[in-house]
């Protein structure tokens, strides 16, 4: 596979990119993307993640050249590509709807980009064969695209983008039309191929689990601006806002005044109990504090840190799902492998506790 590595994966830099649209209802201009500034290193897999309308697709389309930024510059491999049309940019995109050419068969679809580049015939034959082997579609060359299953169409779209060896590969929610099982399979596949080829990839999705499993870096967007950038682990365990914490998986928020602060650690007073939490922020005693803790990091038992009342107890197979009330706050708990643990019933009094390194101070 080593000989198939892309010659030169390119980096992408977005320098204070903004895009302004007109709201069709009010007729007012608004920022669809506002001051997005980021650097994508060559060969990395970066995901633009966010709810619909957050500007992720617009950002991707600006990189591809379908939209022009109203502010800022885009660099591809160190060169400004602002004024280049999509066909002159060294990018290739995999579309949400696959966008396969229905009047071509698989081979012609994949060979389209190579023919445009005036690649000699025998080389086209060779490269298309290689790439189809890579996406495990060998022998399907003569099929028409509507004779393929959704997953196979997805592979053709991927092969068509890969075969031209673009500096950057762009994905616009490519898996959203597949069923859940196939989606998981395909994302592993995409990651495998991207790593095998060492290509730079920018991936747009609204599915946080997809983003976490596939990316080197996640850029979480909201309302046109970047909410947080970082590795999946950073974003999961150290979200910088309620929005990020909530968007990436389920989350509990416990609020109270800060009752103690020292280097690397603080405590938040919640329903009269000082709850310790690891933090590298400098906080003052008396400030409002908010602890973020994931449901799977909380243990429920007859004794522990914070008293609570069980409001929902539901067996989910691999875990027991609890909703408990701590003071006024609802706390969700997923208690893994419940078979050898005590099961609490609705109305029971219990205690919850969690390790300070599993929690995060917002």
């Amino acid at each position: 596979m080593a000989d198939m590595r892309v010659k030169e994966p390119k980096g992408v830099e977005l320098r204070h990119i903004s895009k302004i649209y007109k709201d069709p209802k009010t007729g007012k201009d608004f920022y669809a993307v506002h001051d997005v500034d980021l650097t994508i290193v060559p060969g990395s897999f970066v995901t633009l993640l966010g709810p619909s309308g957050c500007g992720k697709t617009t950002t991707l389309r600006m990189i591809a050249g379908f939209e022009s930024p109203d502010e800022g510059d885009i660099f591809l491999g160190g060169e400004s590509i602002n004024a280049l049309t999509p066909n002159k940019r060294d990018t290739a995109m995999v579309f949400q709807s696959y966008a396969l050419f229905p009047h071509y068969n698989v081979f012609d679809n994949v060979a389209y980009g190579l023919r445009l580049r005036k690649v000699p015939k025998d080389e086209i034959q060779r490269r298309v064969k290689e790439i189809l082997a890579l996406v495990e579609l060998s022998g399907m060359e003569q099929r028409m695209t509507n004779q393929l299953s959704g997953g196979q169409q997805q592979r053709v779209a991927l092969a068509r983008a890969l075969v031209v060896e673009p500096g950057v590969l762009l994905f616009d929610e490519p898996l959203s039309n597949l069923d859940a099982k196939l989606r998981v399979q395909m994302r592993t596949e995409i990651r495998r191929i991207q790593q095998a080829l060492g290509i730079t990839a920018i991936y747009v999705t609204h599915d946080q689990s997809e983003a976490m499993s596939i990316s080197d870096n996640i850029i979480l967007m909201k309302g046109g601006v970047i909410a947080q950038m970082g590795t999946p682990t950073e974003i999961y365990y150290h979200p910088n806002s309620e929005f990020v914490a909530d968007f990436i998986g389920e989350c509990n928020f416990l609020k109270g005044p800060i009752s103690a602060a020292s280097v690397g650690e603080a405590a938040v007073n919640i329903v009269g109990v000082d709850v310790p939490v690891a933090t590298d922020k400098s906080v003052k005693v008396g400030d409002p504090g908010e602890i973020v803790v994931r449901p799977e990091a909380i243990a429920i038992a007859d004794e522990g840190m914070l008293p609570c009342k069980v409001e929902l107890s539901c067996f989910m197979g691999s875990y027991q799902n609890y909703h408990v009330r701590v003071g006024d706050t609802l706390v969700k708990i997923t208690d893994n492998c419940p078979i050898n643990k005590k099961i609490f019933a609705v109305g029971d009094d219990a205690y919850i506790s969690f390790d300070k390194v599993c929690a995060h101070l917002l």
Partner: protein
Amino acid sequence: MARGQGAALDRRKLLADPVMVTTIVLLITFLAIFILYPLAILLVDSFYSAETGVTSQFFSGIFGENVFSRALGKALIIGLLATLIAAAAGFALARAENTADGGLAPGLGKALSFLSVALPLIAVAAYVIAVFDSSGPVARFLQRAFSGGIGSGALIVLVEAIVLAPLCYRMFDGAMRYSNLTTTNATEQQTLRNKLLLKAAVTALVVFALNLLLIVFLDAALYGKRSFIIAISNTLKVGFLVGILSAAIGLLFAYVEVYVKVRTKFMAGLFKVVSMLPVVSPPFVLSLSMIMLFGKAGIITRFLLHIYDNNVYGFWGIAIVQTMTFFPVCYMMFRGLLKNIDPSMEEAARDMGASRFRVFTSVTLPLLLPGIGNAFLVTFIESIADFANPMIIGGSYDTLATTIYLQITGAYDKNGACAMAVVLLGITMVMFMVQKYYLESKTAATLTGKASRARMLIEDRSVTTPLTILCSMMALFVILMYICVPFGALFKTWGYDFHLTTKWFVQVFKKYKGLKAFKDSFVLSLIAAPVTALLSMIISYLVVKKKFKAKGFIEFTSMLAMAVPGTVLGIGYIRGFAGGMFRTGFLQGLYGTGAILVIVFVVRSLPTGTRSGISALRQIDKSIEESAYDMGAGSLKVFTSVTLPLIKDSFLSGLVTAFVRSITAISAIILLVTPSFLLITVQINEFAEKGSFGIACAFATILIAITYGSVLLMNLIIKYFGTSRKIKEAD
């Protein structure tokens, strides 16, 4: 927040694409020169001439020389005096009403308010009656009043003043009352009152101007040429009737097809034929067969009913023939709409206890209402723009389109023709705007959803039987009318001698240069068809898939051609190109050549092609082209390698439609054709007018053969070579 950079970048991207830029520039030039310019020159010529500056050519063109200026002089004096008196009286009355001591007698104010609406309405009604019914009592009365001396003049002023006084009273009264109500401060009251009174005075001035115009038109109508007024009233009458009838019959057919269970093969075939007719309906055909079936020598009237003096010419002749021609268009429109109505809505109404009739009136009909308006207006425009049918079957019943033609070819009155063309264009444009920007969006808003599942068809025999019989009778009648023409060409003397003969066809080819007519029509249309098809596909591509500044202009102009009657376009070309563009001699060489005929063909078929192209392209996911673009294809490559293959079927049908429309075109062509070109349609017109029905039928038969042949050929080609086949086969 500035969007400058994005727009600038978009512009740079566009400019980096020479093919696109050239295409857009060429398109704009073409549309501007061959659609906008001829219409603009008509308007300009009506109100301005290089020698005399601003002119009343428009009015004198309509009413005749001198009539206009005389009428204007009279109207100025009468209108001014009447308005002054009315304003003074109204002001005095308003003042009296708004004094501290209770004002006018109770009831008088109310009566005046009522009269302020009633009297002008009565006046306008009388005016309309007088204009359109020139020999009626109202017109005669007015004529007598107008032609008198000072005394009758004074009488008119008095009547006018009485009509207008309550209106003036109401305006001034409103102003005073409002200022009294808003504030109690005396000075503020005064300023407010002055302001409102000024506004009322301005309104009075507008009333005066309108009054003036009415008087001028009335006067000119009473004393000037009548031809225009008659033509316009004829046109509107026919248009309304045809619009209503076509919409009604179209709706009936669509309803029966979608709602009623008539699943015999025979009926399905009938409906299919009816739905195909509008695509290939050569002009004159229905008029010819109407005359041959119901005229003096008509088979039905003379031989079946023994009526020997039946007059098919005139209003009813035109109305029936046009209805038969245009209702299939309405039928197709309604069929699309009805299929989009979700059956569950009607089932819900039925479930709550509504009778079938009530479901129709309370659910189906309201949903269809904008669509009905749409169908009516489309037919209305078609009807008033129609030239061929009124020409043949109108007899002395002239419509605007035929009058314009006769003005040019018979009376050589170019100013008159030009002015009438402007009026005709004005009417169709207003209708078109209402239809396109108001009704179409409403139709789309109420009926967008796809039917969720199949409809329960009406099986009740008391409903299905009469409807089936009605529809099949009508369908058979229409088909009979189409079949009649070829037989007309095969009988020795229609109506008298029914021996079969080939003499008419022989004469067509031997005596009347039928081969040349055939060749000329065929070659010119064959050139126009691919140009039109390609052009409309390019326009659709740009409109649907690209964004740039001039897009709105391109879309609007190419659709505009739909609202321009052929006769108007023809006059526009004569005025616009006979002396070259702007009479500078530029492009003068075009006039009188085959090229200008081809251009007219293209312009006339462009809207239909563009519309079908746009709807075909909207079906194609935008990202398919984007992905080709993204892979490195320029816009030309994207268009040829992806877009065009995907809309190949639409392109092919556009090609044939353009060909058929061109070869059957008459209205604009007949004004522009020179003796060096013999066109089949022009020949039919000539012989039908002369009463040589045998020859006309022979020509028409050839035309029908060509058009239906082309459509059949197209269907075969699409079936065996179309894109859809490849994709379908894969399923």
